[in-house]
């Protein structure tokens, strides 16, 4: 029984990370209708910056955290600028161009990470070391902090989007960029803000997860894939979608570890993709969204 609980908790912990990355996607997509394939890179770079600040420069963790977030925000804004290099508010970037330019940036970020930090996986410091026993399963405090942070960020984002002016402006930009522009909303600035916000959420995920899973320069693509999956499974329902999708994804991936032997671990890689295709066929709007007319 406790192995089931163990697997469940691993799943939720991993799922929280996917959920955070998916949230980053959601935020950027919400304001710009661009799927930012470089989203996973912010986690990697943010995490690397954080651990370098702490280990090489001996900065206290909160300071290093802020610096990492600032760097991520800068990268997010740079991404938005580059993707929209040749567009106008009335002539938004085409889907293909957006996909390709964010893909190019993904490679660029990966290359920068390789140059700056080399090929070895690295880990950063935990918020709190040690483990605790829950229902017979061993859970590291870092995992608990991760899940808690994901919940807090999700709630905060939800409130932000519903209650603040900027949040509402973001959603209007997504629905009708031209109209928002005519209404006086600076669409570009909102877009840049959304990208920056998405990047900082991604960076937070990277910082939280690096003590558990290590970070290496190639993880950008891995995070991106799982983040997209989380986002698609959950649906476009702003905040709840990626959260539900991410947690489900984490659970599904870890459930297979209950199957003894090598098969379980191997199914873990194939099944999420099958789920994605099934979702695209039968429920492309995701689990939470109502079917649109």
């Amino acid at each position: 029984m406790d192995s089931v609980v163990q697997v469940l908790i691993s799943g939720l912990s991993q799922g929280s990370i996917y959920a955070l990355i998916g949230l980053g996607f959601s935020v950027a997509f919400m304001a710009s209708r661009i799927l930012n394939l470089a989203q996973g890179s912010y986690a990697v770079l943010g995490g690397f910056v954080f651990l370098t600040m702490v280990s090489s420069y001996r900065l206290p963790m909160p300071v290093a955290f802020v610096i990492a977030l600032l760097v991520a925000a800068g990268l997010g804004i740079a991404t938005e600028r580059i993707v929209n290099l040749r567009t106008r508010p009335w002539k938004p970037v085409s889907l293909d161009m957006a996909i390709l330019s964010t893909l190019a940036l993904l490679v660029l970020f990966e290359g920068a990470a390789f140059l700056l930090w080399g090929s070895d996986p690295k880990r950063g410091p935990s918020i709190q070391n040690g483990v605790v026993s829950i229902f017979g399963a061993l859970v590291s405090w870092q995992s608990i902090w991760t899940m808690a942070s994901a919940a807090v960020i999700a709630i905060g984002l939800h409130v932000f989007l519903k209650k603040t002016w900027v949040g509402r402006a973001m959603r209007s930009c997504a629905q009708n960029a031209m109209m928002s522009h005519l209404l006086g909303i600076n669409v570009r600035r909102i877009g840049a803000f959304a990208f920056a916000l998405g990047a900082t959420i991604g960076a937070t995920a990277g910082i939280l997860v690096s003590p558990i899973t290590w970070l290496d320069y190639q993880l950008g693509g891995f995070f991106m894939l799982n983040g997209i999956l989380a986002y698609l499974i959950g649906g476009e329902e702003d905040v709840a979608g990626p959260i539900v999708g991410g947690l489900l994804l984490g659970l599904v991936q870890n459930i297979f570890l209950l199957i003894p032997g090598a098969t379980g671990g191997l199914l873990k890689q194939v099944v999420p993709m099958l789920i994605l295709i099934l979702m695209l066929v039968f429920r492309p709007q995701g689990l939470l969204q109502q079917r649109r007319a």
Partner: protein
Amino acid sequence: MTLLGVVNYLVRRNAAFFIVLPVYAVVSSVLYWAGWLHSDVIVTSAIFFIVILGLDLLYGCAGLLSFGHVGFFAIGAYSVAVLAAQFAIGPFESTVVGMLINVVLSYVLGRVCLRLSGSYFMLGTLAFGIMVHATITVAYTVTGGDGGLGGIPRPQIGGVALTSDLSFGILVWGCAIILFWLTYSLSKSKVGRAARAIRSDEVAASCLGVDVGRLKMNIFIISACFASLGGSLFAMYNGAVHPDSFSLATLLDLLLMMFFGGEGTIWGALLGTTFMRLLPDITGNLHGGKILFTGILFTVIIFVLPRGIAGAIYDLLERFKKPRADLGKTLVGDVPFTLERPAATAGVLLRLEGLSRNFGGVRAVDDVSFNVRNGKIRGLIGPNGAGKSTLMNLISGTLPLNEGCVKLEGRNIEGLGAHEIARQGIQRTFQHERLFSHLTIIENIMVGHERGADGSLREMAVCALGLPSALKSEIAARQEAGKWLASLALSDYADAAIGKVPHGLRKLVEVARACAARPILLLLDETVAGLNDSERVAFKNVIRALRDKGLVIVIIEHDIDFIMDLCDEISVLNFGRKIADGTPAEIRVDSQVKEAYLGT
């Protein structure tokens, strides 16, 4: 048209093939002797060229960006590897097996993904690619997994094993050149035009007669076969396969090859693949900075050379063209419309009975019935939101109807797809002009004349091979389109992009495109909006000329005077219902019409 004339046309149309290949051969020979180009790069360039030919056909022509072709590539490679290792089956046979597997898989994947919108299509195909990679790694008892699978023999031709780079290279380049010819011909033929029409505007394409679903599926399957062949040759060349050769990094390489060369040009793929295969040799000593360099290169390519090298070359050539004649002369010359056949029924051509269409709770079209008679021009007017365009969409099959029926020449056509209705003889224009942005002006009209393409494999084969029958109809289509352009004083703009022609003229080109399809019924949706006064006069003359030649026309307009002057019969819609029907004189005095437009 003599056979010589047809061959001459074919050579001139496929000129790029005859120019690019020799230049490439000469340049690569020079580089080879200088020691900068190695034989393995030459061989692998051909292998990937084959893959990109398929990918460019799929994206450059049909506009479908697939992230999953690495999967087809991998299956082609692993079929050869596994069959050779486990069953000692020779390379040729296993290549065929691999292709069959990929045909089935691409059909299934196509059924699932082709109806998805842009980004979902990419994600669905990406999922496929990842699944293939994961399956290869996972099923290691069969595929060797991370241990790789070796012992793949080279093929034998006439008892001689193709073990050297030279001999295998001849095989690969032979395949590549043949496929290059076929793909290039296809992209320049009516199938290519139909594909680009789909890429530009799927709805307009199907209204012209393109069987969108079928064409997309067939192109998808064919591109998968190309990737499969490439994969099999790849496996044979390396002698072994390993999952790391079929990862997302390879996908990135494929995309770069296509975009750097110039998507849509087909021959650009040759440059793109050679450059990407050569790149590691150029960046050889960068070691750590290599990935960053690739990323920067990719970014630069996307922004500086968005259409790749081939696109940049075309842009350069544009500058050397003669400047075109100024527009502004009033049109129009004689309208070169010929009715293909007289209407099958005398009297009523089109009968609408009780048509209805709901959107959620709103009844956009509510029980509308009227008849359109031969030799008459019928107008359709009403306030904004009355349901006129929706009604037109119902007739043309762009939207399915909820109730009622539509009878053309006595036959029921409601429920047919838009392209089938087009082939029945109904053509239309759109409220917001929908010319095909990926085709030139003359090609737009040619697509009309050719009625798109039926998307069948037979048609694709005929066009790819460049058979005389296909070429003759293409030449005829070009001539007919030329006549239309002459009548619009646009002959100089035949090869121009549609953006070079002002809005008003573009709408007239759209009409010409519809007429070139020789319909028996033409639906015009607010064509006059945006035309200036002289253009409107010219347009009226065109419509009258068409009517005199036997074409039946239904026209939606807001300009009441225009409609009153032009039409023989008018229907008036309001809130989805028909409130009046009759001659212009009758409509003018109808009280319900006045109330609808002016209030009481």
